[in-house]
């Protein structure tokens, strides 16, 4: 029963101590590396097993010259994969079969464009959805809130391509905004060409209703927690006490969960609006069976998705000390 004083203190410290966040983050990163390895392997296998090859979709003379310059082409698939992996460790993602340009630069260029599009549209979604969610969590579904919530449900049910074409039609025929190509316009409405795809994807990427529902549910659940009652009883702000569990965690949760959907929507929007992003390139690469490009784009998309959940995990660990001991 009589422990030495330092022992008692240490055991109490152990209870309170939280594993350094760097350890947790590096563990998450290690998991991410394994995940990327798995993704690349599966995609490689699928590509290998799928019918068609880059050479049948290219011109005859190009094919022969390409085949001649790629000695690894005839090797078995696993050695091809290992070669590809070995090249990656040297920062070499190969060259595009179609254009002959180094894949890494290409993917980074379009990846940044896609990042603009996805982050921009995510921002649009959140800017619309979160205030509605907060107000309806606090005050219940008043008629105004009900109408707004319905609007978000309808908006997220609209097909992206449909809305995109409608928007293009209206902007071209009503307001004479033309051409709608990314960055190619020198008109004073240039920023609009940038905004339109972002707005369209933000409105109808199919996640807005979900965001409203999730945020509203979580926040109103937290508002009915007993500790919020305590906060009110001691005269503190209930928003301050509800912020972490009711706002920060659900919002990162929903962002992490919805990034894949937004990326999927980006493919369509980039097609429609001629946005030189990853989705458009992926589409093109898939048609050409441009293996190195497809691999690189898949990896990039996986990295985006993983990054989302990484941010979610990091916020969760920082905010909720309980989760750091799991």
């Amino acid at each position, binding site marked *: 029963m009589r422990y030495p004083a330092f022992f008692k203190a240490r055991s109490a410290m152990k209870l*309170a101590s939280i594993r350094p966040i760097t350890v947790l983050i590096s563990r998450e990163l290690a998991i991410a590396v394994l995940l990327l390895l798995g993704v690349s392997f599966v995609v490689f296998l699928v590509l290998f097993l799928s019918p068609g090859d880059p050479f049948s979709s290219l011109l005859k003379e190009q094919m022969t010259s390409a085949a001649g310059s790629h000695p690894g082409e005839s090797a078995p698939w696993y050695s091809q994969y290992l070669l590809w992996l070995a090249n990656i460790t040297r920062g070499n993602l190969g060259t595009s079969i179609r254009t002959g340009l180094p894949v890494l630069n290409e993917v980074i260029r379009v990846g940044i464009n896609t990042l603009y599009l996805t982050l921009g549209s995510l921002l649009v979604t959140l800017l619309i959805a979160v205030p509605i969610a907060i107000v309806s969590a606090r005050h219940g579904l008043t008629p105004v809130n009900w109408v707004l919530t319905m609007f978000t449900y309808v908006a997220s049910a609209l097909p992206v391509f449909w809305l995109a074409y409608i928007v293009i039609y209206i902007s071209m025929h009503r307001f004479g905004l033309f051409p709608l190509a990314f960055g190619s316009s020198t008109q004073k409405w240039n920023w609009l060409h940038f905004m339109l795809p972002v707005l369209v994807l933000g409105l109808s990427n199919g996640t807005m209703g979900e965001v409203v529902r999730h945020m509203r549910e979580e926040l109103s659940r937290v508002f009915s927690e007993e*500790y919020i009652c305590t906060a009110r009883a001691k*005269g503190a702000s209930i928003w301050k006490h509800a912020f*972490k569990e009711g706002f920060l965690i659900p919002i990162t949760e929903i962002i992490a969960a919805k990034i894949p959907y937004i990326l999927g929507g980006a493919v369509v929007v980039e097609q429609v609006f001629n946005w030189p992003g990853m989705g458009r390139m992926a589409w093109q690469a898939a048609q050409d069976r441009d293996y190195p490009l497809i691999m690189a784009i898949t990896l990039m998309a996986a990295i985006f998705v993983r990054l989302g959940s990484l941010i979610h995990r990091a916020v969760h660990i920082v905010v909720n000390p309980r989760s750091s001991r799991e």
Partner: protein
Amino acid sequence: MTAGPVLKIENLRTFFYSRSKQAFSRAVDGVDLALEKGETLGIVGESGSGKSVTALSVMGLVTAEPGVVSGKIGLKTDGIQKNLLQNIEDYVNMTQNNGRIMHVSKDNRGWQRHVDRHLRGVRGKEIAMIFQNPKASMNPFSSVGRQIQEAVLLNTSIKNPREAKERALYWLEQVKIDSPQLRYDNNPFGLSGGMCQRAMIAMALSSEPSVLIADEPTTGLDATIQSKIVSLLAELKSSVGVTTLLISHDIDVIKTLSDRVAVMYGGRVLEYGPSRDILSKVDNEKHPYTAALLASIPTARQIREKSYLQAIKGDVIDTINLPRGCRFYPRCRQVTDQIREQCKQREPDLREIASNQSVRCWLYFDA
């Protein structure tokens, strides 16, 4: 010397409107209580008798949408003097038809805003509250010490965070938490239920309130911790001397801690007086309900002989369909043929039968 009670609850009615039944559930139905400075007033009764709702009404924490509060709660302390329920009825709209309530609409938002504004400077500052279920009542995302520090900063004249921390540590010491320096940085999930309740008590007292409301402070803790919390509260009562409204269904807790007691049943006070007299097992004059509650506590002999526990027959009254007569009549075992009709037909009022002791029962007086 004493300028009247610190907290005076007059004719408090807290009803919850049930839309499906088109009727009010009368959780608290005309309660009058007065809390003198320095005393501890206990409220005892079965679950569902309206004890906690009384406390929540005082703090303006009745948030359930159709909750309607009326009456008067006068708070009179050195700093403040006001009716906590001022204008609260303005936010409720009732449509009546032949005395029957057809529809109740409540401007929930306005109500909430009004209560929050009206009770600013009262919640925490003048009246602090301890809840049941201490582990759920502390914010799990913030350390215990931070939460106490916040209370200090909000409700006392200390505005310097470092001083507030010292103050918080002082209160953690006062509630006898071991190694307060370490506990300060602990999160509530790292503390046991008993320690959490101690921290809650520290948080409530750190605001230096005029009135402390302890809503079932020992519920949900195991028996040994319960007795420790009770003795802590008793110690604090003598050392700090804060005016307390203590709510519990545990008669022993009330008997140990309170000076006066109100026995509640079905939203009404059935008996009100010095707790020493009322809660003693000696057969003096008391309300049949109080007697039945006391009889349901097993005596040492009963425990030794493992005989049956004496429960009160029947269920707690449904406060939607109230009988015309005494609310306890359906479960009362002391009705005599003489007064049976009266019990069935008319509800008795709360009358003084001995010094300071009031009872709501036909046994002790006539019409």
